[in-house]
């Protein structure tokens, strides 16, 4: 039930997210007699029941947090059965498909259910997700997950290759999402699935050639407002930077970010608050900078938002289109 509504405390049957670190989250379903092993020690499920979501839990070798799942947390912690969609693209898809409570959506394929969970959050309780997956085992897993998450009544998982067999839906849905190797093969069938009053479609494709064929096919099928976009998240790290003034700075500095002459002690305390962000590397950095202090008393200090050097360069192209009254 923890996916349908925000809750205060943990009950048996809830799926919770054990937050061990920024890139280390484990989803667990709370069951009697079960125990979860984490790198900080074991956590007995029963001991979590009745606890408030967001609580810091002491384990034998450290602590973890227990969070109520959101589709965004789920996307970061779910078991991968396929390549998955991430929240930057997912957000755009939900928005561009005009989804809201009550929307009826067709999705192919289900994959690992990353997008499905976000769709379900938005369209429940009056909407329906009709999701199609050609891979039998994945179908079963998805169905099981939706059931565990209390979402079964809002979703129908169908085991079918829509590329060959089509959606077999007759003017029923508000929106169609296609994440398939050959989306263009399903566009005619998608058109037939969309309500007479019109609707929206989205295809996700990693390669531009797929986009080109999809756009052609969309156009042929009288879809309009065809738009292809790309969204890339660029994350920033906050770093406390200290640049040596190799010449005496007689220039008055502007309003921004600079305690010139910042001493070592003062910095140390400021940096402590940052140490959690980057553990080992920063301590090296501190040492290195401290050495420099010997030769230069003056430093220019500031908090800097630095884009992460390694970033996701591409996920896929999102093509959106409208089908008007038809």
């Amino acid at each position, binding site marked *: 039930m923890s996916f349908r*509504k*925000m809750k*205060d405390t943990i009950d048996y049957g809830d799926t919770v997210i054990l*937050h061990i670190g920024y890139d280390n989250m484990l989803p667990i379903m709370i069951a009697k007699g079960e125990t979860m092993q984490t790198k900080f020690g*074991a*956590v*007995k499920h029963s001991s*979590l029941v009745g*606890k*408030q*979501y*967001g*609580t*810091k*839990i*002491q*384990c034998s070798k450290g602590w973890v*947090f*227990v*969070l109520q799942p*959101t*589709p*965004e*947390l789920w996307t970061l912690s779910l078991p991968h059965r396929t390549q998955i969609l991430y*929240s*930057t693209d997912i*957000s*755009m898809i*939900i*928005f*561009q498909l*005009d989804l*809201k*409570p009550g929307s009826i959506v067709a999705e192919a394929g289900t994959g690992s259910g990353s997008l499905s969970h976000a769709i379900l*959050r938005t369209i429940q309780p*009056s909407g329906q997700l009709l999701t199609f997956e050609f891979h039998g085992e994945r179908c079963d897993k998805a169905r099981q997950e939706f059931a565990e998450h209390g979402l079964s009544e809002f979703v129908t998982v169908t085991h079918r290759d829509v590329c060959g067999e089509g959606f077999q839906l007759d003017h029923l849905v508000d929106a169609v999402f296609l994440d398939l190797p050959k989306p263009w093969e399903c566009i005619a069938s998608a058109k037939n699935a969309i309500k007479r*009053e*019109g609707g929206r479609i989205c295809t996700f494709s990693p390669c531009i050639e797929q*986009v*080109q064929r999809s756009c052609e096919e969309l156009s042929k099928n*009288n879809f*309009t*407002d065809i738009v*292809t*976009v*790309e*969204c*890339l*998240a*660029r*994350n*920033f790290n*906050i770093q406390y930077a200290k640049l040596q003034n190799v010449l005496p700075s007689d220039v008055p500095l502007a309003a921004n970010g600079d305690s010139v002459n910042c001493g070592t002690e003062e910095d140390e305390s400021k940096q402590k*608050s*940052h140490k959690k962000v980057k553990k080992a590397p920063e301590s090296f950095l501190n040492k290195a900078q401290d050495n420099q202090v010997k030769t230069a008393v003056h430093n220019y200090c500031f*908090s800097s*938002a630095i884009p992460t050097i390694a970033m996701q360069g591409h996920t896929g192209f999102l*093509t959106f289109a409208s089908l*008007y*009254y038809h």
Partner: protein
Amino acid sequence: MTDIQEGDHVVFKRDGLSRVYQMRRNREVYFERSKFKVDDLIGQPYGSTFEIDRGKLVKFEQEKVVQLKETISSLPGADNRNLLDAESNQKMSKDDIMKMKDEGITGEKIIEELIENSETFKGKTEFSQAKYLKKKKKKHILVFTVLRPTPRLVMEIFSKEPGKICNLRPDTLSQLLNYGNVMYGSNVAVVETCQGLVLASLLQRMGGEGKLIQLVPNTSNSVCRQVMDYFNFPKEHLDNVYMFPLDTFSTITDDTEETDGNSAANLNLETSSEKTVTAPTDAASTDGGDSSIDSKTLMTVGGVLVESSDKSDQSENAALLNIPGKAAPSTDVAEANDVTMKDNDALIENAAGGEVIGGKRQLPPNRDLQRQLKLQKQKEAGQIIRNKQLDSLILACKYNPLPILMTMLEFLPPSRPVVVYCQYLEPLVECYTQIKKKGIGLQLRLSETWFREYQVLPQRTHPLMNMSGTGGYLLTFMTVQPVIEKVQS
């Protein structure tokens, strides 16, 4: 309800351009330099396409659209080596065109004349011909589709003046809604200065359940919620919208039941001071077009009558549009440039919505009742906050987010998402640093989005030549209970 009803706000959409109009019989609207009555739209299904033919609405057949598309198909690479200044090669003057229009000649006919009078058209490549045709069609033939407003469409209204909505872009607004975990029945606290766009988008995702509390700086200032009107929300949905002034915040920090009385007293004080301040606002509203028509609805929402004449917004926006940057839009013909300028002017004139001529006005309702209702809702909102019943906190405003964030976090239960949007990076660095320092946020993330559009055409696929340089920055995290709980292991 798939047909357009009288009183509906609808979107007129053509290419990348959207405008919102309220449907009233006998009302004339301006759209893309044309003036026409909208009576004939009422009763038509949403999604219908129309053409303005000599000042009159005519239903547009689908086939024409397709035909236009097929014209544009040619291979690139052919060279236009002799083309330098297209404008001077046109024998028809602007006056000639205006005269033809005055004579009631159709757009199609005008384009035919333009082609015949172009010295270079025949020498152009097929691709260039198609491009020329497309441009002229856009200028001389006005075709648009009438659609039900959605956040996506309404957002397009602001695409040329993003400063009005704090530079929000579809990518950032969409993330704000998703990372905020907004869903049916959510209790959401929001601070926004985006004309009501964020408010409306949130309300739609709540589907008629839950509470949407808009935090405003103080009781005396008006807030612009103009965009809320565009969505034709039923009254039951609007009833879920609350307004809570942040300057009455001290009234809810005491936990005793007794303080409720105190709070009410405080609120009364605030309200009386508001009396004198709102007067000029109301006066201004009378020349605000049809906004007073919806004032009754707005009253029940619990707000004061709100106004879009936020001058600081407009000038801020102007500043953002006139940036001395380098990226110049690549319009190669002077004429096209001209059009853009005119469009822009019109846009500023009309504010965000469509300009409307005529339309009857109603007298403002009982002001006392209005004030009482407002106070009641304000109190309810305060209780929701104090009782820690909020499911998410969302900031997208031109105020310094840090004090608001730190104050509101006290009232947010653990394991709840917080999203802070800002058009500047620096304030979010401050927020990030504080959250990190206090250890009160998990999955803390500061990001921006690179949003890029593509032209996908046979043999001519490439990213668009112009793009948006910024859609603002997002800080997202989950609240936690920092006290350690020991459990059995």
